[in-house]
């Protein structure tokens, strides 16, 4: 089963490392340019997942939370990873004032946390992932 099929079925992991390994495998299988919508509440492992994506793209610098500056840009050998936290955006129109497109040079991957805040802006081709935690402290990842 390839990583897309595995993720569609839903994957449960027991550690941050395991979640990152899944994300790294997923990163290697992604198209040249793509937007990922990461759905899930505070503390369920969204940034942890993006750190795994970065690892998959060969990015070695620290991938820190983008919350303060809204988005961060990581340039790797295989891909530019743009990590956006839409939590404080109120409308899709506010995306226009972020100068985001200046940093989306192919090949790129845009990972969006809190995508529901800018639902009208999210491209139709976006891959949507649901992240969650279980009562026994495991993380779940599922591709819609």
């Amino acid at each position, binding site marked *: 089963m390839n990583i897309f099929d595995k993720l569609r079925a839903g994957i449960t992991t027991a550690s941050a490392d395991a979640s990152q390994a899944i994300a790294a495998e997923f990163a290697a299988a992604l198209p040249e340019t793509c937007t990922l919508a990461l759905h899930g509440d505070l503390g369920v492992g969204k940034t942890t997942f993006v*750190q795994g994506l970065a690892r998959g793209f060969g990015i070695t610098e*620290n991938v820190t939370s983008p*919350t*303060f500056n809204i988005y961060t840009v990581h340039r790797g050998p295989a891909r530019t990873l743009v990590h956006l936290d839409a939590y404080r955006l109120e409308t899709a129109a*506010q995306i226009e*004032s972020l*100068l985001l497109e200046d940093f989306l040079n192919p090949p790129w991957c845009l990972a969006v946390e809190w995508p529901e805040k800018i639902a009208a802006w999210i491209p139709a081709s976006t891959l949507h992932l649901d992240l969650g*935690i279980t009562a026994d402290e495991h993380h779940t990842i599922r591709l819609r």
Partner: protein
Amino acid sequence: MILALESSCDESAVALFDPSRGLVGEWVHSQIALHQPHGGVVPDMATREHLRQFAPLIALAQAKPEFAAVSQIAVTHGPGLAACLAIGGAAAKALALALRVPVVGVNHLRAHAWSPFISVHAEAPGDFAERMKAYLPHLGLIVSGGNTLLFTIDEARQFTVLASTRDDAAGEALDKGAKLLGLGYPGGPLVEKIGAGGRADAFDFPRGNGPRSELDFSFSGLKTSLRYRLEKMSEEEVATRLPDLCASYQQAVMDALVRKTRVALERRGWRSLGLSGGVANNAVLRTALAAEARRAKVDFFAAQPKHTGDNAGMIAFAAWADSTGVRRAEGLDLGVEPNAPLA
């Protein structure tokens, strides 16, 4: 005379600094009230507010007799919100053209790094260079909503980053913890206030320390552990134990900061320890770091409260003191660097 402008996030600020006297005026317009209902800074609202606030702030500086002596404009060019930085940058360039003086770009993080020394300079401006020799090499900790950094300034005023966060900044960990606890924004001061009435050892949250050899910070596991803890508690229980939760959660953040700083202090013979950034106002942190400095027998300098948040006083001071990091753009070529690193 240096005229400084700061607009990296949600504070519009202007300051006048005379190297031979110190800060002669500081003006700040805070947007906290504007962003409070939204649970954090909303970028395009912040940008428009900067546009409204800069002219009246600059007018206040212009009313000072010292304004006539302005010989340089300094402006934050990063890191920060791109569109917010652009407003300050445009205002600075317009002033530079009007006053026929040069404009320099100052790194906001370098300004935080220098901010504990503003009061050292103010005590005896003429002796600053000589006195600094006694405080270098310096170990500094910047703790804010966007950054958690341990860094050094060596005898030649060169900067080196010793450690940074792998995920969330310390201030962000407090803000997001506050959000999980159902408190308002900004969360850090609320967690401190409510936690003052609670027991710091009531709940055991992970410190995310890792091996002693690794100085990097990590706070995302702490956030997740609070989430797990809250899911096991009833709403009523969370409400009655809120002070204990706040005190214990805050303690976990502060412990990580203090322990890493202690390891860094032991690594070599620093001659001073500095603390700056928004979270530097936290009394638990100030007290603990002062004790670490005493133990290591080094001088401890914490930024004054008015220089912990975003302010232009530190931008003006760094434009003068930070001989190795100021961006001297040709003409009006100064751009913005939203992701500018400390070093």
